[in-house]
């Protein structure tokens, strides 16, 4: 599904990623944990195709194709999805218009038929209800005036609607209360499936109680310094990152 080989990336001359190796197979959920500034968010942006990063070495293969060769919108159409740590507010763009444009753009890029209004409304209403996204939120401009929890629920709803094959969740748990964390996690778990890979980036083991990963990686100073099973997250929670920061 996703294969990252020796990935180096920098921004404004600062080396952020220094040789990431990571392989995610269909159906697997991987978690990346690590201290602040270790490059976790950079990795997520590089995967989604943000312009600000310069790739100096390495490659990313997504379903066997060169991901770095694709524009951000092409990556999305190919099945890559990033749930933002800080979802962007876009005044003047109604959430519904945005959702419909995104869904139909992806369908068009894949050569599928565009959704008509009744079908679109039906799907949105169903997914919105599952994630506690109210009709009022759908009417408002995208993310404008949404609380932190509402923004994150909106991200997961988009993920459910776009049905990507590779989901990258960048600190989706940050800013969530206990109930919101449960709703968001249930939304993510509902999308787990044999054909879908997931990369969950988080600071806290708490999220991984809800979204149980197959593999946990520890990232420090732009490298993956240790990988293990879900018990690694518990160990980190107890001991902290100190051992790994020094190791890197």
């Amino acid at each position, binding site marked *: 599904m996703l294969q990252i080989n020796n990935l180096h990336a920098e921004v404004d001359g600062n080396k952020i990623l220094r040789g990431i190796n990571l392989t995610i197979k269909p159906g697997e959920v991987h978690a990346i944990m690590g201290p602040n500034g270790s490059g976790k968010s950079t990795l997520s942006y590089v995967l989604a*195709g*943000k*312009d600000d990063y310069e790739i100096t070495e390495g490659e990313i293969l997504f379903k066997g194709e060169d991901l770095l060769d694709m*524009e951000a*919108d092409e990556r*999305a*159409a190919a099945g890559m999805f990033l749930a933002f740590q800080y979802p962007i507010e876009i005044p003047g*763009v109604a959430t519904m218009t945005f959702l419909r444009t995104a869904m139909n753009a*992806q369908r068009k890029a894949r050569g599928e038929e565009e959704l008509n209004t009744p079908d679109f409304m039906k799907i949105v209403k169903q997914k919105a209800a599952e994630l506690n996204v109210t009709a009022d939120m759908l009417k408002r401009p995208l993310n404008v005036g949404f609380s932190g929890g509402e923004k994150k629920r909106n991200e997961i709803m988009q993920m459910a609607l*776009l049905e990507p094959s590779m989901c990258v969740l960048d600190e989706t748990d940050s800013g969530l209360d206990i109930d919101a964390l449960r709703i968001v996690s249930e939304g993510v778990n509902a999308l787990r499936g044999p054909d879908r890979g997931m990369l969950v980036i988080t600071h806290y083991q708490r999220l991984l109680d809800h979204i149980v990963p197959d593999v946990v990686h520890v990232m420090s100073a732009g490298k993956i310094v240790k990988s293990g099973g879900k018990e690694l997250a518990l160990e980190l929670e107890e001991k902290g990152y100190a051992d790994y920061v020094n190791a890197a």
Partner: protein
Amino acid sequence: MTAQPTNMQTQAEKALLEILGGQPLTGAREIAAGRLRESGLPHRRVEEWKYTDLRAYLKDFPTLADQSGAVLTREPLVPADVSLQVVNGHAQSVPGELPDGVSISVAKTDNGTAFHTKPSTTVDLNTALSNGGYSIAISKADKVPVIFIDHIVDGTEAVTAAFRHSITVESGANATLVERFSGPSDVAYLVSGGLSAFVGDGAFLTHTRVVNEGPQSSHLGAIGARLGANATYEPFVMTLGSYLVRTDVHLTFEGEHSHGGVRGATLIKGDEHTDMTLEVDHAAPNCTSIEQFKSVIDGRAQAVFQGKIMVKQIAQKTDAKMMSQGLLLSENGEFLNKPELEIFADDVVCGHGATCGDLDDNLLFYLLSRGIPRPVAETMMVQAFVSEAIEDTEQPEIIEALEAMVEDWLATRQA
């Protein structure tokens, strides 16, 4: 030997003087013409024209159009109760049946005086050259009338179309006025389009002006409005560029507790130049005004916004907020923004803001990351930028018409 400094007259100035000399003028027209004869066309050393050097821009001043008889069939911009047409500056006949509370006649010259008394070249040209226009009076009725005036320049000859309408919305009455301006694409015609509006006590006027002239034309628009007490005037000026567009808006608060919502959107490309010059005069206490303008600039186009809010000493408790924002879609576009506040009262809330930037990369990336292709994402963002000013309009039909024009403009931009 002493040298007398004389200004070289430009071709346009010579032509203008010829036009002014060719007709007998009296009263306000003669005063305005006198000022034009005296100082010629304004240039960049005149503060109000610093960014729109009219002397340099106007290559010629075409002769005034003769009476034109042809009434053209066009779809109104929005469904209207009264549909009027001005062809080559001449108001066509008024429909026989008018809705309750609406009376309209065709006035000759001296039609409306709601402008500031301070001389303004845009207004002087209109005063001196106008051959009249519609004189509209609205009294209180059950239904709010929608009046549409379509201004068309027609033909293959370069002409000057000059006219001035007046509208009086009487006490407690409510009206919607929609104006559209258009003309041929291959003729360098000139339009001097005036509107004088009196909004009476407790009256409400919604006014939309769409300037969508031919690419070679020059449009000099003048809007003057005076508000009584508890009155509301909500103008929206949509400018799609041509060679030159300058619109002067004068708003005067004469009674207490009135509100002005002055908004506009400008979309320009190529070598187009637009100038929105606004002067809001708070001359009575307890009035509020909002000024909100959006300019989208592509190519080598240049947009100017000059907005002045004047708060007279008597106008305590004034609340005025002005915001002008530019969005640059190209490296070579230019946005010149000059907000001014002149405040002589001490208990007021006044603010102004001006921004200028290109499309926000973070917003763009968010849309791209959801699979929306770049051209579509850019269109969505420009629409969103402009919509902020449009969506405060009360009538959904007008919002829809304006948004459709934005969409068309964006489609031609990317084509």
